[in-house]
């Protein structure tokens, strides 16, 4: 593992954390509305996956801010989307759950659990069709593995032999339902293991996530077949801002927080000489500044003009045939 990777991990994970804590604050102030799903605690999965994956199309569910940031989408444009401003990545029309940017091969942000999994399979098919062997990354929660879309997608990916990495973030809960209350077993990689290589990893360890996803990427691209990763992780915050999260015990939360992925990285990075105190301090200050600027930018950006309501419904603007 190189020093530069460790530094990137730290930078992006810390950026994600500070960005989301700030988003939470802005939500309470009323500057952000709707559903806001935070990934605090899950940064190692999101950052490790994006960096390990590298080039290619990414499809994620609604808990996707950190994926977007790790992918290189600018914090100010992401924050502006959360604020519903015209400068946001989706012009303020999508909000927190719907960040899209084809420039970054980033296709959402989907608010229907499991719905993006077939999209990933189709995208991989299309790439293959045009002679492109680049793999596709689809990330989703434990709850999504109970949906028909999930089973249909893994079956088709394996049958069609397309290069998709299915990355399941098992944070043990689908809103208030613990994983073992909605599934006969809690080791979710088992759901895919007869279809494709399937592994379970520690999602609180960014090195492990990175290495696993990187290996999976090589596999899907050389073999042209799908791969399944279950990353065990935890969300420190409630499901969304409108959930209390009181179905989890303080003890359980504490155990998870003791494995904090950022602290974990700091410790390992310092031990192995991959990170320095100076770099950490530098990043901590830097991301604060970036996030402040992002909030400023979002606050000062204009609202979408009213005509935007009717734009983007279709590509082709039809003349009104009646009048």
């Amino acid at each position, binding site marked *: 593992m190189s020093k530069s990777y460790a530094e990137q991990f730290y930078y992006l994970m810390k950026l994600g954390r500070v960005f989301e804590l700030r988003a939470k604050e802005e939500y309470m102030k009323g500057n952000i*509305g*709707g*559903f806001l799903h935070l990934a605090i605690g899950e940064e190692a999965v999101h950052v490790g996956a994006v960096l390990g994956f590298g080039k290619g199309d990414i499809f994620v569910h609604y808990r996707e801010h950190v994926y977007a940031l790790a992918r290189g989408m600018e914090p100010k444009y992401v924050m502006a989307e959360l604020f*519903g*401003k015209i400068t946001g990545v*989706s012009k*303020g*029309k*999508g*909000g927190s*759950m*719907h960040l899209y940017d084809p420039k970054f091969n980033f296709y959402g942000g*989907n*608010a*229907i*659990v*499991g719905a993006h999994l077939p999209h990933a399979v189709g995208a991989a098919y299309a790439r293959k069709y045009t002679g492109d062997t680049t793999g596709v990354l689809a990330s989703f929660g434990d*709850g*999504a593995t*109970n*949906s*028909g*879309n999930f089973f249909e997608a893994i079956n088709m990916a394996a049958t069609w032999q397309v290069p998709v990495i299915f990355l399941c973030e098992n944070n043990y809960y*689908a*809103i*208030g*339902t613990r994983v073992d*209350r*909605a*599934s006969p077993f809690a080791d979710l990689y088992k759901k895919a293991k007869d279809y494709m290589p399937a592994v379970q990893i520690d999602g609180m360890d960014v090195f492990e996530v990175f290495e696993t996803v990187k290996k999976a990427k090589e596999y899907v691209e050389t073999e042209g077949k799908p791969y399944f990763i279950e990353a065990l992780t935890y969300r420190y915050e409630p499901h969304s801002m409108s959930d209390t999260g009181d*179905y989890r015990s303080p003890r359980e939360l504490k155990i998870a927080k003791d494995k904090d992925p950022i602290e974990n990285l700091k410790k390992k990075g310092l031990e192995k000489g991959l990170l320095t105190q100076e770099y950490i301090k530098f990043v901590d200050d830097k991301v604060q500044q970036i996030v402040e600027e992002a909030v400023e930018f979002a606050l000062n950006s204009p*609202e*979408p003009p*009213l005509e*935007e*309501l*009717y734009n983007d*419904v279709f590509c082709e603007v039809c003349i009104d045939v009646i009048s």
Partner: protein
Amino acid sequence: MLYREALNKAMDEMMEKDPSVVILGEDVGFYGGNYKVTEGLYAKYGRKRVIDTPIAENSIVGTAIGMAIGGLRPIAEIMTVNFSLLAMDQIVNQLAKIRYMSGGKIVLPVVIRMPQGVAKQLAAQHSQSLERFFASVPGLRVFVASDATTAYYGLKYAITTDDPVIFLEHTLLYPEKMEIEEEKNFSPYRARIKKEGEGITIVSYLKMLHDTLKVVPIIEKELNTTCEVIDLCSINPLDISTIANSVKKTKRLVVITEEPKTGSYANEIINKVLEEVFYELDAPPLKIGSEDVPTPYNRTLELASIPTPEKIASLIIKWGRKHGI
């Protein structure tokens, strides 16, 4: 009492009375329901009767059908109507048709409860009103619960009837304070005259009904007339006689729904009224609904996309003036 508590009370009483009544859905049990509608029922009736399901809408409805075949009376909660789209095969191809295809031998007393509508900035995939789809399927009863009274009596009726019922609620009504008004002979198939009037018949339901009632005084003052406001408790079947009788008196019809205007259920109401009383009308019917766009996240655009009390008032006043009220 809150609107959602009226729904809870209906289910509680039916479960107490009839052991074959069960509830199933995502987070309905241990968690108490995403909108707290089933709160307390898990503790009271246990997990055998208040069943937490995986995220699997098609199979929530599918297993409810199987449960009904097996002699139970399931109430399936779909967390929001948006996710019912994943269950459309079970709802449309199965639930609506099995009784007919079996020559009436199989009955499916299934209730599917779900909230719909624009809440606040939940964006396009979480803000839909879909009654048009359900109301157009032969074999489904479709109820809309606009207040605590129709929520309570309507849901009890839905659980009791042997027909499948799609039971639509509105997300924003759940925390609203209202009381159940006692009714001796409640029928969901009778439309309800919420307010009598002479000059304009306004038909609506769910949240739009409340938004309309708020501005009726303004409309009446501006147009110097009175409005008769009708709440539909069932949209399939539709109580056309109550509406037609009102229109015969007022000579004018306004229909307000939250669905996007093109293809909305308001069209069905207007069409049926026209068939009955076309020659009695003094003005073309006015349809008020959402813009034909997916619901945007931005709050200003979101409000611009749906009927609001202010818009309802101004549209009706403008229409009234144009047509000589």
